[in-house]
């Protein structure tokens, strides 16, 4: 096929073009013709199709995402907000922290190892592109039923991919989630989060300014990886009946990425770049159009100078290639030599592929012929916007009416019955120990990990002299969100906020990964609208702005969508990491206090799932002012040394929290059911806004006074004691028996 140049496109307006195959709608294709005043060239069509895909353009979701800006709370901490590669937050002492959670769901289903690995690679480059050194990763994961044969294929591959890539990059994995639910069968969710640290003056943005500045592509050579992956993979559901458009899978090279990180950080140290962008989904199409769109001028690129792994690639394919481990930098001409020198030191290939112009167009040449000539904003930022119809699902009322009352679901009434259910929940795949998974991740590298596996949040020291640190927690309960997406999204935020505070850090900012089904289904779109509204409202109350994140739609098989799954990450700061609060009960005789109010709230609970395989009713109520108060108390108590352990109460309720804190510290607990409290509700309710803390006896008075003065209910429920969990008057279970139930579960399922 001959080269489709701009000149050729002008002369042959009636040539039929494969816009539909590239995922464009007829009106979208017409709009491209209108923007250009002619038909697009093949290369232009490739660029528009990939950049206007759901994944890159957020065309279905952006009308709802706007709320995160419109309802943004005032926050002194925000340095860079939504729209850049990742948000940046001021954490004091001149440090800035950037973090973001992103999805890599569809690729991880097709090729679990590489899909998950390149998910880590992508989010790490986003963080690096802000000017930060990546310092930790986390992975919120969702799989189908634990005993489904496909879970045995998907889970080990995804875990090995995350470990294989993250471990090889030298980034500690400090937490995340693993949830099993048959709704994720065929649509596992692989979300990846990365945290990066820099000084304020090191913040970099993705923009190309200053005519004459050079565009440098550096990192791996470009091959045929994931061509069309972004539009095809992320925007359409899998359909086994049609021939697949399955593209070449992207393969990650973590070694190359490690070199890219060190090389880029050295380039930042010498202040050699004006703007920088990583290459992820939509590859060069995205990087060049976004850089040019955000800058002041235009850009000219000689596409034939791009170093190739496969020399047969066409210009269209080079523009769409999603080869991993590549970055694009804007560099002043007199700094180019030094830039290339540093790349050479790190064995990183770097090539000047173009320059910033004083025009307004993005012009791309192929061996001297103009093949792309577009206004960059129309590609990168002015894609289509849809007002998708949405409506409350017809089944929602019936689902909410099916409440898990005592009449509907039999509750244990004896001590033996309570014990049996406690063990069942503690040994269920969702609540059991995840050590089989987390043991495959390096949590020690870099030597700054303060809290990680099994804790409420992951915490990292960022300054060895001052002990300044940050912590992150991710949470999201699809069952709650299915029952009520507005409340479910708020509960996800509330739990992550609580988890950060329980470790002793002050919550500052939010990143979210919104995993939903098809936006073309009004039911799903309603869930999405409700969840975003709930999250935006809650962020406003808690004072934690959304700094960025990602939306993953089309997570469904046929007509059946996953549970709406908003995953919320909260970042917090702690002035002195030595004051952090772990979850483990370690000191005999310390007093256990239950903070917050416990009501009969079992809708969407772990107990209703594990014991009755039931989902119905309403999720626990949210009281955001209470969450904030609880957070304040936990942070103050940690700072002033009033508590030695704290564990947030969420899935599985108090019972599960006690199991985890006892096993982690190797100490038992004696629990007294408070007067008038139903022991079943005490142990299994999932009321929000609660935590259990261990208070040294010497601090009891001070701690109580503080809770009373601030108006937080604090109930003394027992003491750290012995080798068993003893709920007085009900049952006693030894730590050995608890451990037996809680561990080895995942191993047994995968064996």
């Amino acid at each position, binding site marked *: 096929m001959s080269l489709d140049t701009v000149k050729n496109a002008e002369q042959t307006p009636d040539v039929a073009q494969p816009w539909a195959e590239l995922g464009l709608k007829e009106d979208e294709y017409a709009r491209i013709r209108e923007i250009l005043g002619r038909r697009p060239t093949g290369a232009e069509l490739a660029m528009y199709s990939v950049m206007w895909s759901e994944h890159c353009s957020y065309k279905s979701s952006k009308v709802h995402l706007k709320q995160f800006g419109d309802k943004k709370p005032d926050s002194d901490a925000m340095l860079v907000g939504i729209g850049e590669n990742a948000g940046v937050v001021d954490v004091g002492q001149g440090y800035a922290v950037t973090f973001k959670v992103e999805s890599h769901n569809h690729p991880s289903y097709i090729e679990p190892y590489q899909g998950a690995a390149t998910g880590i690679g992508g989010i790490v480059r986003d963080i690096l592109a802000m000017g930060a050194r990546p310092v930790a990763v986390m992975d919120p994961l969702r799989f189908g039923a634990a005993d489904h044969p496909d879970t045995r294929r998907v889970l080990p591959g995804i875990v*090995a991919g995350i*470990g*294989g890539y993250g*471990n*090889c*990059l*030298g980034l500690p994995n400090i937490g995340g989630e693993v949830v099993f639910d048959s709704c994720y069968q065929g649509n596992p969710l692989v979300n990846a989060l990365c945290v990066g640290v820099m000084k304020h003056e090191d913040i970099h943005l993705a923009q190309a300014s200053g005519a004459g500045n050079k565009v440098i592509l550096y990192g791996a050579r470009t091959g045929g990886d994931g061509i069309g992956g972004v539009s095809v993979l992320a925007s359409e559901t899998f359909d086994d009946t049609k021939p697949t458009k399955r593209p070449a899978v992207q393969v990650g*090279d*973590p*070694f*190359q990425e*490690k*070199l890219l990180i060190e090389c880029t950080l050295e380039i930042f140290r010498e202040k050699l770049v004006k703007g920088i962008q990583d290459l992820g989904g939509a590859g060069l199409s995205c990087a060049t159009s976004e850089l040019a769109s955000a800058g002041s001028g235009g850009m000219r690129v000689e596409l034939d100078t791009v170093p190739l792994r496969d020399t047969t690639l066409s210009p269209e394919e080079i523009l769409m290639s999603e080869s991993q481990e590549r970055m694009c930098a804007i560099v002043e001409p007199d700094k180019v030599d030094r830039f290339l020198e540093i790349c050479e030191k*790190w*064995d990183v290939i770097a090539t000047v592929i173009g320059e910033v112009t004083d025009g307004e167009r993005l012009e791309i040449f192929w061996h001297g012929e103009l093949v792309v000539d577009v206004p960059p904003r129309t590609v990168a930022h002015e894609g289509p916007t849809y007002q998708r119809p949405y409506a409350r699902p017809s089944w929602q009322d019936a689902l909410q009416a099916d409440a898990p009352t005592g009449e509907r679901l039999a509750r244990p009434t004896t001590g033996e019955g309570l014990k049996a259910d406690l063990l069942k929940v503690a040994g269920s795949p969702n609540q059991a120990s995840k050590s089989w998974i*987390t*043991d*495959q*991740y*390096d*949590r*020690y*590298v*870099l*030597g*700054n*990990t*303060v809290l990680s596996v099994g804790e409420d949040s992951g915490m990292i*020291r960022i300054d*060895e002299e001052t002990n300044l640190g940050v912590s992150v927690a991710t949470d999201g309960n699809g069952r709650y969100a299915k029952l009520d997406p507005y409340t479910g999204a708020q509960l996800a935020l509330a739990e992550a906020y609580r988890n950060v505070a329980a470790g002793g850090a002050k919550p500052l900012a939010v990143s979210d990964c919104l995993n939903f089904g098809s936006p073309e289904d009004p039911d799903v779109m309603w869930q999405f609208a409700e969840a975003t509204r709930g999250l935006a409202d809650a962020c406003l109350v808690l004072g934690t702005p959304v700094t960025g994140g990602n939306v993953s739609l089309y997570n469904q098989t046929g007509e059946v969508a996953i549970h709406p799954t908003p995953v919320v990450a909260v970042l917090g700061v702690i002035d002195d*990491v*030595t004051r952090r609060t772990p979850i483990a009960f370690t000191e005999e005789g310390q007093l256990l206090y239950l903070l917050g109010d416990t009501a009969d709230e079992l809708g969407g609970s772990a107990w209703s799932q594990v014991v009755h395989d039931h989902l119905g009713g309403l999720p626990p109520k949210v009281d955001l002012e209470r969450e904030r108060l609880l957070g304040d108390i936990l942070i103050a108590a940690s700072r002033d040394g009033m508590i030695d352990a704290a564990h947030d109460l969420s899935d599985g309720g108090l019972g599960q929290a006690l199991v985890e804190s006892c096993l982690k510290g190797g100490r038992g607990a004696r629990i007294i059911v408070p007067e008038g409290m139903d022991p079943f509700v005490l142990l299994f309710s999932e009321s929000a806004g609660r935590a259990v803390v261990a208070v040294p006896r010497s601090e009891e008075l001070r701690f109580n006074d503080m809770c009373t003065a601030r108006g937080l209910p604090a109930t003394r429920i027992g003491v750290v004691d012995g080798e068993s969990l003893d709920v007085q008057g009900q049952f006693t279970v030894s730590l050995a028996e608890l451990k037996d139930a809680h561990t080895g579960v995942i191993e047994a399922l995968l064996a």
Partner: protein
Amino acid sequence: MTTRVGVVTFPGSLDDRDAQRAVRLAGAEPVALWHRDKDLHQVDAVVLPGGFSYGDYLRCGAISRFSPVMETVIEQAKLGMPVLGICNGFQVLCESHLLPGALTRNDSLHFVCRDQKLRIENAGTAWTRDYSAGQEIVVPLKNGEGRFVADEHVLDELEAEGRVVARYLDVNPNGSYRDIAGITNAAGNVVGLMPHPEHAVEPLTGPTVEGLGFFTSVLKQLVNA
């Protein structure tokens, strides 16, 4: 005069900064060494840190072993300079034939990261003299290819000459022959260790501080030398 301990950075080294921190906490001056630079910059001892040098492609340590810095390290090690290879560094030492045997894929076929109990078997090497023979310590272990293998007569020779430096206790995490976690050369100056003592040097970030002894040992060795 402060003791200078070099820490080599290969492309793909990960625990180099951790090793430098451990050297500093032990009271010595860490010196960053670069794989392309043959010059050891007057260091008194060298640590080859953990990581995935060259992505662990081909075989772990196989490509690093031919780097310029290793020419000098091998030369100096033969002259008695203390050299500690941790994890990937151990693999480099085996590929360099400074230590016998090889490190292969874990028997579980999975990467494993855990707090590992060890017994120090030989407290006479340049890197273990601050421990006592038989002392039990806990330090992190993290590897995908940490299974120490060698043929029977090499293993017998290592045992007979007391060259097994540390052994896994309770759990053999990777299927290493005879639970071997670390070995030394005949002279006792070159030690290879699969677990990571540099991650057990601060109470805040490590499971214990029982790894610090490796770094204080070499200081004592050099001061007394």
